[in-house]
């Protein structure tokens, strides 16, 4: 119990005093996971829409793969991204391994299936009559897609929340592709692992509290947006 109490005190102290290193790590976590989430949206929303609206052989098969990939273990992504980015790997010449970019790549790969899956599910749930109706308004293809996406924005925000939540909390891939380098690829989760192995439990507890607060703050903000829109409707 003493340890938990000390951890909480340490967390308060680190937050109140605005500890430089902790602040850096927290901001970096936000940047990296935020970028990865954005990329997963750029990839995921169009692909999800395409999958939902088109009919072709093997579509169900692709959807089943995607649904599996939504639970893709980060450590799997971490190892494969590492293999590709190591100097001995095919993309070694880019010198990306152990950089923040490598972290963004790995996290975007983790979040993309979540975004694709949730987007396509959301669009499939819309009433086919509605789709027909929008088309009947004489909309162009772009207008049609825009209106459709607007219709499902509630679910799209859920996809953002799920994607961000998945990447901000994962440690396996970040450790492998980032290497937990101070000032560069150290994020809140990997910093926690390091402090535990150093025996600094108070700081580790403080980091977990900060990470939880961060994840909560972002999710709260997204949820408020989502609900406001819901009520606005």
């Amino acid at each position, binding site marked *: 119990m003493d340890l938990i109490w000390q951890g909480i005190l340490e967390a308060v102290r680190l937050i109140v005093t605005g500890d430089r290193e902790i602040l850096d790590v927290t901001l*970096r976590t*936000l*940047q*990296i996971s*935020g*970028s990865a*989430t*954005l*990329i997963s*949206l750029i990839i995921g929303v169009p692909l999800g829409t395409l999958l939902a609206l088109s009919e072709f052989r093997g579509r169900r098969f692709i959807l089943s793969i995607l649904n599996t990939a939504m639970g893709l273990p980060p450590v799997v992504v971490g190892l494969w991204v590492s293999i590709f980015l*190591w*100097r*001995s790997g095919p993309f*070694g*010449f880019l*010198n990306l*391994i*152990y*950089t*923040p*970019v490598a972290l*963004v790549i790995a996290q975007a790969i983790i979040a993309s299936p979540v975004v694709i899956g949730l987007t396509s599910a959301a669009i499939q749930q819309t009433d086919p009559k509605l789709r027909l109706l929008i088309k009947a308004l004489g909309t162009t293809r772009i207008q049609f897609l825009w209106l459709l996406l*607007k219709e499902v*924005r509630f679910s799209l*925000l859920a996809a*953002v929340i799920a994607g961000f939540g998945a990447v901000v909390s994962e440690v396996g891939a970040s450790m492998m592709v980032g*290497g*937990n*380098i101070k000032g*560069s690829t150290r994020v809140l989760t990997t910093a926690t692992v*390091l402090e*535990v*192995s*150093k*025996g600094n*439990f108070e700081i580790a507890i403080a980091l977990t509290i900060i990470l939880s607060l961060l994840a909560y703050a972002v999710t709260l903000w*997204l949820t408020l*947006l*989502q609900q*406001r*829109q819901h009520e*606005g*409707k």
Partner: protein
Amino acid sequence: MRKTFRKHGMWTILIILMTALVLSGCGTAGNQGGSQTGSQSEPSAQPPKPANPDLILATTTSTVDSGLLDVLVPEFEKKTGYKVKTIPNGTGAALKMGEDGNADVLLVHAPASEKKLVDNQTAINYQLVMHNDFIIVGPANDPAGVKATKTSADAFKAIAAKQAIFVSRGDDSGTDKKEKDLWKAAKITPSGAWYQESGSGMGQTLNIASEKNGYTLTDRATFLANKKNLKLEIVLEGEASLLNIYHVMQVNPEKFPKVNKDGAKAFVDFMVSPETQKLIGEFGKDKFGQSLFFPDAGKKDSDIGKAA
């Protein structure tokens, strides 16, 4: 009103995420630009700017978990201008990174496995740096009576005979290799419910041993650094076979052209320089009242520990 809310929401998210992307992009671009070209107008008091500043150091968890590299790496960066990416792994993984040319310089402690890399010319400029020692730790009541033994072989025999819980790293690290060697020396093949593999680093393995009232083999540095959280004490120490010898080496640039040759050489030179050796010897004295590592640069492997 409704419309503004809607638009507002969507756009805010996009803008925030965009900002995050741009910021992180800037961060990396800034780093690369600054380090690659060295064109940023820093005052001349700043450290030199090498042509290729990124240096990947593959090492073992003990040098990181003990805090030693937190002292040495900034010193090296300040002196030479290189930017070190320290990747702590078990010695097995660190050596593999060298074998594949995925690291520039290695700092590891498994001489028998290192020899292979030196023999096949994967590692060059192979230098002795320092040693610390392994200790056997266990619960204070010492159920297997290890404190009465004199050698690690006898200690392991006692633990196996009593089937007292022993937590092994099981991760092919330098410590793990050492432990396997000691079992071999004791002529015991450990197996059974009492012999448990944690598959984790030293700090975590110590925690597991402590929680399970078990024994484990650890390096002294990690044990001292974690001691305040552990219900373990030293049950055997000071035997010659328990020495933990660290070497530093460059990955051969002739085999792997992408290796940062100059940076690796600078790091090896730094590790064996008199100033660094002094830092190593003094590391930990203020916190633990004793040295965690003993500088050995210039000595021969066989000379180490004669005095200990």
